[in-house]
């Protein structure tokens, strides 16, 4: 098994006249919970999209779970999963139908059992016959999480996983995700604007600024380095500083 779950090597993405990602290099260890922070336009979405193979980099190399994401994308995709409140599931299908459909798409063996287990664990049994479109935002997020766990991913990529959730449900979700990581030694890589969440969950934080890695370290190390009490203050320090503070590094 490769020691790095995610490895970006000098990755650049240019869209015609805009450079969204300007030479990013970093890696995430297996089993880590890592966060990707950055202001609007910092390049987070592009970076996540490249990680998932939705966008091809202009330059550089991305290794995911030991495979080259450009050349071996379809070997990697069955082992990873993605969840975002900004991508929807088919509205007119019921929760159960959505999960059954995706279980088949991922080739999940004993799909029905897996669907039932996830519905129970994420407290969705009572809405399994309801259409996805009729659910509240919080319920939709939980269904999306259930979908993303169907294939028991080794790498789970999350885009603001607790956005639109009430504090109680968000807390439950964070606990659930950490438990999943601990039980499966999975790697979690999440983009988030919720600094409290990042501090609580993550072993590693990657801060992006203007398409470059401005800093990368454990939350506690970042607090010490910037002499701040919260990650939000660190984020503001980095965001308001003119130049990237730290060159991209391991």
């Amino acid at each position, binding site marked *: 098994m490769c020691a790095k779950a995610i490895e970006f090597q000098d990755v650049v993405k240019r869209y015609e006249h805009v450079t969204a990602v300007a030479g990013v290099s970093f890696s995430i260890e297996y089993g880590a919970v890592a966060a990707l922070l950055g202001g609007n336009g910092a390049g987070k979405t592009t970076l996540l999209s490249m990680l998932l193979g939705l966008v091809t980099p202009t330059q550089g190399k991305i290794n995911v779970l030991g495979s080259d994401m450009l050349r071996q994308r379809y070997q990697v995709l069955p082992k990873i999963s993605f969840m975002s409140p900004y991508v929807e599931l*088919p509205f007119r299908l019921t929760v159960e139908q959505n999960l059954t459909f995706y279980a088949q798409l991922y080739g999940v063996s004993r799909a029905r059992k897996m669907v039932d287990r996830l519905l129970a664990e994420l407290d969705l049994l009572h809405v399994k016959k309801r259409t996805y479109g009729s659910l509240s935002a919080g319920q939709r997020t939980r269904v999306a999480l259930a979908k993303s766990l169907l294939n028991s991913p080794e790498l789970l990529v999350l885009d603001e996983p607790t956005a639109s959730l009430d504090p109680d449900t968000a807390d439950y979700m964070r606990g659930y995700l950490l438990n999943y990581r601990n039980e499966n030694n999975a790697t979690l890589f999440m983009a988030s604007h919720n600094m409290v969440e990042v501090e609580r969950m993550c072993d590693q934080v990657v801060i992006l600024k203007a398409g470059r890695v401005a800093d990368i370290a454990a939350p506690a190390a970042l607090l010490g380095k910037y002499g701040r009490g919260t990650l939000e203050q660190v984020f503001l320090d980095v965001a308001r500083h003119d130049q990237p503070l730290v060159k991209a590094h391991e």
Partner: protein
Amino acid sequence: MSRVTINRWLKRMSRRILVDQVKQSLLRIFAIHRRHYYLMRGSWPRIAEMFYWPTVQMVMWGFMNQYLTQRAEGVYIGAGMLIAAFLLWDVLFRSQLGVSLAFFEEIYSRNLGYLFVSPLRPQELVLSLLSIAVLRTGLGVGVAAWLAIPFYGFSIFDLGWALVAFFCNLIFFGWAIGLAVVSMVMRYGMGAESLAWALVFVFAPITGVYYPISVLPQWLQYISWCLPPTYVFEGLRELIGMHTVNMMFLSYALVLNLVYVAIAAALFLVAFRAARQRGLLLQIGE
């Protein structure tokens, strides 16, 4: 262990891996079928729409056919000619629409992001769209064709195996148009959606659906003969009028269809690759 034994073992293993990959691929294609089956099952307007237009138009062209055969002196309208022409035209229309709509459903539900990060390959998505189009067309037009029997005493099924050949050729050309539309939508976004309803009608006047293409200007006839449906509709007239199946026409149509479908599939893959480069896969709906 001898080298021969090792080679045999390797061959057996690679065959097993290949079989497993094909099996997985089919499962993913059937998963997309399942998703559309669920969608149809839960939405009666979608089911009704599938049967409504073919049936309404069949009824209209049926009356037109009756009127012309009874009243139009000196004009030869074979029994059921217009009904058959309409039903076959609708095969082409529904086939391309089936491909486009199946793809649009994913855009409408903003589900493409999840689909494209699943193990589903673009080629599998294409095969799913094409097979869904066949099912939708077969059901929609099939019901209209069946209703034409009690309504007008005309059974298109009497055309025998030639009907299967006509049907397949029109389905294939519909696939090509549908994939071209989907490629345009991937490149230009949903602004190109209207092509799904409009593009196919460019071919209606020049492929001789309701009249022989000999009525077209000579220069336009050259274009017509480059289009597979022309051979189908000319062949249909020959079959109903002279009771002969023009094998040459069917062969030309098939060869042309292979070329058009190959071009359209390549166009789709190029559009998909371009969308990944431009970062459009998550923004197609916009």
